[in-house]
């Protein structure tokens, strides 16, 4: 954590932060989520026969909390609260977002929803492996294919041994 990050909480118009300076949508999103929880909470019994508190109370509290926090966040953003991207070991918070890399990695994460069941874990993992490696700038796809395939197959057999239910190896062929 940089110490100068803390001094700029007010009027944070410090050097072009890569994040959009006024992320109102986060606050609004939180309020929307809070509203859903609040609505669900009111639909549940608030009190139970012997217990004073029913299953609805905590849901209501969570919803109300999110709603209030979302509103506070919107207010803070309006007042100019600054948001600085975190630094990670291999990432620089101050650089601009690489949209292509982000979307490639996102596809790798979304892919399993569709392919894990019908095409099996090793196939899906190999494909995701290649996509993430590509997102990080690897251009030797055949090498990634081999690495991914070896890792996915090894992991499949190893975790199978440990008793994990990973499904069939390659369902289209029935193995």
């Amino acid at each position, binding site marked *: 954590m940089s110490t100068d990050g803390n001094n700029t909480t007010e009027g944070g118009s410090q050097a072009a932060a890569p994040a959009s300076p006024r992320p109102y949508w986060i606050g609004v999103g939180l309020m929307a989520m809070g509203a859903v929880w609040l609505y669900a909470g009111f639909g549940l019994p608030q009190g139970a026969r012997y217990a004073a*508190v029913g*299953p609805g109370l*905590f849901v209501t509290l969570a919803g109300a909390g999110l709603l209030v926090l979302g509103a506070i966040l919107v207010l803070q953003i309006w007042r100019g609260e600054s948001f600085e991207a*975190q630094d990670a070991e291999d990432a620089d918070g101050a650089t601009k977002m690489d949209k292509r890399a982000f979307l490639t990695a996102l596809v790798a994460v979304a892919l399993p929803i569709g392919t894990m069941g019908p095409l099996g874990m090793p196939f899906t993992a190999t494909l*995701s492996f290649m996509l993430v490696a590509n997102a990080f700038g690897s251009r030797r796809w055949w090498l990634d294919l081999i690495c991914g395939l070896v*890792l996915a197959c090894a992991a499949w057999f190893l975790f199978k041994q440990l*008793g994990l239910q990973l499904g069939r190896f390659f369902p289209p062929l029935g193995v």
Partner: protein
Amino acid sequence: METFELLLHGFSVALQPTNLMWALVGSVLGTAIGILPGIGPALTIALLLPVTTALAPTSAFIMFAGILYGAMYGGSTTSILLNTPGEAGSMMTALEGNKMARAGRGAAALATAAIGSFVAGTIATLALTFAAPAVAELAFYFKPTDYFAITALAFCSVAVVMGTSRTRGFVSLFLGIAIGVIGIDTMTGQPRLTFGNMQLLRGIALTVVLVSLFAVGEILYVASRYRSTPGVMAPIKGQLWMTKQDFARSWKPWLRGTAIGFPMGALPGSGSEIPTMLSYTLERKLTKHPEEFGKGAIEGVAGPEAANNAAAAGILVPLLTLGLPTSATAAVLLAAFQNYGLQPGPFLFTSNPALIWGLIASLYVGNVMLLVLNLPLVGIWVQLLRIPRPQLYAGILVFAMIGVWGLAGSWMDLTIMLVVGLAGYVMRVYDFPIAPVLIGLILGPMAETQLRTALAAGQGNPMVLVSTPLSAILLTLAVLLLALPILLKRLRANA
């Protein structure tokens, strides 16, 4: 002396060859993931949770403890040699440690970090040995009211202390609590927020959320802001380990770091960042070589590293005695206990002493292993950093999806992985803390059960929540905590 006998019994468990092997596996894995970027102890243990179906609980927890301690050792290595602190706890180490390494004293910095970690780890484990049974004894008398007050205090401190602002800390916490209410209500059997979906009835598993936030969120984030210029590693070949003078300057910071780290680690929310920061500040004030600070003072490595490891032992006190997790890693350890149908707390000390004392004894053993693994072999460990980043992050995603898919083979879990992973990305971009989500997720249902039990016993009168002295004090503290950020800001400004 009863504790001593129990500990001896624990050693007889920990020194069984299979358990020694699991301690070694844990230590090796822990050191490796401490050195590798993008993967930390909480994520590793979460990904290994499935093995709990195949392993006896004692062996599994001995391995997990090795990972917890090992990650602390491994984290210091990259901080010192590469100036890339893997987690908040090694940030202070990088400050002086990397300066030392660049001045050709990397070997001495690594040595004081490893030996300091060993000294602190051993003393803190000793403190754990005697503090844990005492706290457990007290906890026998806790009522649901007290437990609710403890969780409320934990909520407040986690939200206030972690992260850049109170609002963002509480947002993270409430996200976790909100996710935690999804599924069947355990007390009445009512489905909550399942939207008619059968797969949501069993709730959202901690593993799914943790893996998504820590692995998927990190991969998306690093991919979008990848810094491909590799760090320059400071050489350590042919350097002397610690000299007599280094030793003389290190031993007091080690002890002071331990004294700060252990109790701070036991407090919710303080994690390893605050104790290391405090230790660094203290050493800079007490040093006889103030001119060296900022240029590579050995005290600035010795103290924080000791505090870091002592804090790791400290988190085990509330976890084992109260079932109260105070960090992300502790939350996933609690999930591991729950996988076995075990509830950490005072009763576990009487019902399963072999597990508790075997685990505590294995911490002593693991510390010795880690010292041996890390000090002479550090040259081998840093070779891990040669793994090219594209393939490393791709591999992390493969393990993440296995961890999520292997839980129940459900596409719903994979969808949650995508959504929560995206949320993890957004949280990194806009600087929201991650750990409070996990604390909220695992402590929320506990707080709810205790609140409802307490209120049912008090026939619905909310005054029952402050009816015991302890609960009244704890809830007052929780409210006072909201003023803490101002104090913390001062501390950070001084550091």
